[in-house]
């Protein structure tokens, strides 16, 4: 029970901090907004081209936005040596990891849900019927990104050049998430039958499961000397 209590405390602390400062969410949100605008200026798209490209654009925007949130996740703990206190507390570090994953997931998912209507408006998308499937895709892909991302956020926070190293280390590893998310989103947006892109959701599920376990286990070695 102590395990879940600690997880709850970490989530409570991160959400409360975010609620008061709105620092992470607002920077993620505006960054993503700028990315969307730049994309829509860079490609002058008709309806058909939009169908082809939009899934890629969405996930590039979300992945880079996620980097900002993940980068801040442990940078906050570095102020005032809070990380040392977390390390010195009794109990499994896995609880800290799950708490942080939950918080990061919440931030990223919230930003995605706020931003998605903008894509719909700016690129004239038709999503009314597939909305629940899109939501599922967003959930699973964001889960994968935050599972690995939280581990790498902790890994890079105490090194030099951490702002650069986080994307350099993280992006090659999340290639499967990006491929699966883009393909599934493309399928959902173009109104294909679910069976055609079901395999991508399965891939996301495998990735999420594998990396939740591996990261959970590896997090101990990052936090504990």
């Amino acid at each position, binding site marked *: 029970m102590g395990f879940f209590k600690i997880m709850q405390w970490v989530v409570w602390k991160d959400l409360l901090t975010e609620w008061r400062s709105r620092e992470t969410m607002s920077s993620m949100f505006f960054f993503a907004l700028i990315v969307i605008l730049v994309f829509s200026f860079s490609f002058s798209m008709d309806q058909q081209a939009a169908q082809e490209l939009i899934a890629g654009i969405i996930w590039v925007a979300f992945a880079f936005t996620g980097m900002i949130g993940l980068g801040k996740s442990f940078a906050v703990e570095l102020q005032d040596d809070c990380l040392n206190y977390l390390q010195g507390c009794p109990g499994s570090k896995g609880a800290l990891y799950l708490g942080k994953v939950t918080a990061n997931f919440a931030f990223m998912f919230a930003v995605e849900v706020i931003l998605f209507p903008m894509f719909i408006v700016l690129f004239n998308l038709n999503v009314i019927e597939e909305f629940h499937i899109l939501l599922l895709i967003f959930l699973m892909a964001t889960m994968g990104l935050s599972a690995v991302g939280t581990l790498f956020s902790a*890994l890079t926070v105490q*090194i030099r050049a951490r702002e650069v190293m986080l994307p350099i280390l993280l992006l090659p590893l999340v290639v499967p998430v990006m491929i699966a998310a883009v393909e599934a989103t493309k399928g959902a947006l173009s109104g294909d039958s679910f069976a055609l892109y079901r395999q991508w959701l399965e891939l996301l599920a495998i990735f999420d499961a594998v*990396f939740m376990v591996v990261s959970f286990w590896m997090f101990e070695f990052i936090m504990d000397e």
Partner: protein
Amino acid sequence: MNKTMINRVIRKIQRYKGWFGGAAALCMMAGLYVGLLASPPDYYQGEVARIMYVHVPLAHTSLLAYTVLFGGSIWYLWKRDPLVDNMCHAAAGLTALFTLLALLTGMIWGKPTWNAWWTWDARLTSFIVLLLITIGYLMLRTFIDDPEREARYAAVLAIVGFVDLPIVHFSVEWWRTLHQPQSISMRGVSISSGLLIPLMLMSVGMSLLFSYMLMVRTQMLYLVNLLDAKKGRLLSQFHLSKAES
């Protein structure tokens, strides 16, 4: 005697590594002779197929090198032996080198056979991800000052990357079958026994060469650290004595 200060394993390597180097040289020279001179050209690809004798062993060896890195990383996290960490560091550098060379020779082979330097094939993509991971690994190590933490973080990265590679491979395979099922087929060369002998010789030789290089590089990293530390310590003692007087 100064020799006793050097790690026992490093001294053992110094004594026995020559056998590996010699065996590697023998295997590879025999492989080159058979592959370039004493074997017939491939039926489909002609003489160009001889690139296989250098490309395929390089690719095998880079996977072997990364497996060594993965095993070493687990071993390090378990035993925390700095020498194992030196071995991992060495293996990572060699993984990057072998992967890069495998990619380059693969591109040179791809141009005459498929008329394209590059395709987003599953094998190529997972190799480039492997290259990016090992380069990231080497960069990560240069950005951490505390050697113990450097070793620990690097080990974690290597393990996570190793788990990721098969998933990358499968995801790209699915993605490829969805998009470009025809055009460039990645049909491997049908292996006849005439091709198999030089291929085996070169593969074994390259693996031996890798183990030899791993030994040399581990020694190098260990000795460089050792000398740096001793010099640094003398230097800091010098400064302290100056500051105190």
